[in-house]
């Protein structure tokens, strides 16, 4: 293993700790024996080849997937407070709903099933829509949005969730450059507010520019630390080999049943 996972944290106080964490499906591990902490306020990219277990790790953090072994500890944040933007939206975009109402769902933790939208909350909804550059589209049905617009709306919803921990799974998958630029600015803004943001990303150039810290994953932690250092050719090659099961790593052969392509 080229680099030991560095437990160095920017603010000291951890928000997440993995302890011998193994996650998988149907008893087949997708990532195994993860060890380490993520500091509160981190802006962390998770990078790795397809099948490296990146999305699996996010699902483990949200609690959607229970560990096969080991555990994940959360500090100062509850699972339902985590904002999690999945790789494929689970939204039924043919559902008759307009952008305003979709974004307003982000307020669920505050208003629940019965609370009303008072003036202050309406202002916040409008501000969130404005911040993602969607003003004027409040009353457009979600089914009429382009991919980029829909992702902007998703970000506005995350914004209203006011979450201390934000997980983004390939948030820029199929959207245009202008949308990526705007949404990346929003991620920086969240980081500036002291939120912890963990993003699964494929665009290494984007990671080098925007993310101070990177975790390179290939079923196990290949490297962790400063993005420029972690994303070295040697590390990336090693990660690819591990993910393809071509490594002499003893764990690799039992791990090929990863159903999760992330």
């Amino acid at each position: 293993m080229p680099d030991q996972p560095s437990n160095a944290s920017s603010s000291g106080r951890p928000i997440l700790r993995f302890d011998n964490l193994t996650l998988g499906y149907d008893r087949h591990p997708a990532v195994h024996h993860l060890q380490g902490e993520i500091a509160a306020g981190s802006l962390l990219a998770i990078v790795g080849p397809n099948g490296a277990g990146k999305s699996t790790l996010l699902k483990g953090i949200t609690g959607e997937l229970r560990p096969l072994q080991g555990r994940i500890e959360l500090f100062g944040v509850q699972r339902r407070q985590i904002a999690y933007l999945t790789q494929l939206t689970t939204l039924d975009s043919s559902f008759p709903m307009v952008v305003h109402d979709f974004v307003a769902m982000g307020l669920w933790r505050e208003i629940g099933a019965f609370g009303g939208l008072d003036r202050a909350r309406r202002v916040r909804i409008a501000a969130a829509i404005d911040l993602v550059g969607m003003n004027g589209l409040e009353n457009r049905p979600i089914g009429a949005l382009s991919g980029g617009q829909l992702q902007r709306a998703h970000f506005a919803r995350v914004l209203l969730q006011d979450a201390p921990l934000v997980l983004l799974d390939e948030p820029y998958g199929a959207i245009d450059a202008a949308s990526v630029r705007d949404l990346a600015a929003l991620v920086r803004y969240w980081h500036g507010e002291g939120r912890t943001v963990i993003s699964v990303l494929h665009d290494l150039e984007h990671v080098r520019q925007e993310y101070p810290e990177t975790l390179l994953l290939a079923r196990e932690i290949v490297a962790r630390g400063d993005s420029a250092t972690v994303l070295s050719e040697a590390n990336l090659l090693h990660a690819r080999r591990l993910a393809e099961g071509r490594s002499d790593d003893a764990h690799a052969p039992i791990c090929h049943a990863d159903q999760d392509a992330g």
Partner: protein
Amino acid sequence: MNETLASIPLLSPFIEFSFMRRALAGCLALSLGATPVGVFLMLRRMSLAGDAMSHAILPGAAIGYLIAGLSLPAMTLGGLVAGLAVAVLSGGVARNSVIKEDTSLATFYLISLSAGVLIISLRGSSVDLLHVLFGSVLALDDAALLLLAGFASLSVLVLAIGLRLFVLEGCDPAFLGRISRLGPLAHYGFMVLLVLNLVAGFHALGTLMAVGIMILPAAAARLWVCNVGPLLLIAVSVALLGSFIGLLLSYHADLPAGPAIVLTLGGLYLLSLLVAPLGPLASRWRSGWHFER
């Protein structure tokens, strides 16, 4: 007063005959209770599941019939138990095996329907079988009307309280699951509402037609608007209008009432397909006009 009203041809059958008034009251209850449930059924892409569930209540109602004849409480109770059992069983099989939800539901409803018809034919006449399959909207007695009104009131209340929950469960269930513990409550609560309304519809329109007043008005309304609130209002209005016209048609042309109502609703749906802004024709006629779905 009554005479002036009775001179209006559209109203006279309802003024003259109490069975017509009762039928209209029954349809009013179904329109208010079952139709909004039908809207959510459609939005959750469960229209066919609703149809399957309507058959699933048959063996329960049939066992009630076997024990107590054409008894309202016995058939209602039997229908509720059978419907809920099939909902829970088919959901359970779908979640815990390789059989998917649609197949799971189809298997259970096929078993239910055949069992139901078999049980009724053990004892009943073909008239009874017709009653069970196509309902008897023109023969609603006080007890049946009260039952329909009671179920409708309960549905309206539950939908009003849980509206936001049902909307979120319909459009983004995974998101709801992450932010709230109420997801399963919304799902099973909805299934209970569905079964209640199917049993109510069963008494008036029969097991084969009960879904008609749920899905047809919902589908027609969907062609007009893009927001849940107006969708519910339009669907209920379509259901009321269809029931009214259908009953009149059945009276004047001497047609069976249940099919006349459902066919009228079907006509309103076809009409919406032709003229409504989200219908397939409207977008072609106005080629330069982008209606946003």
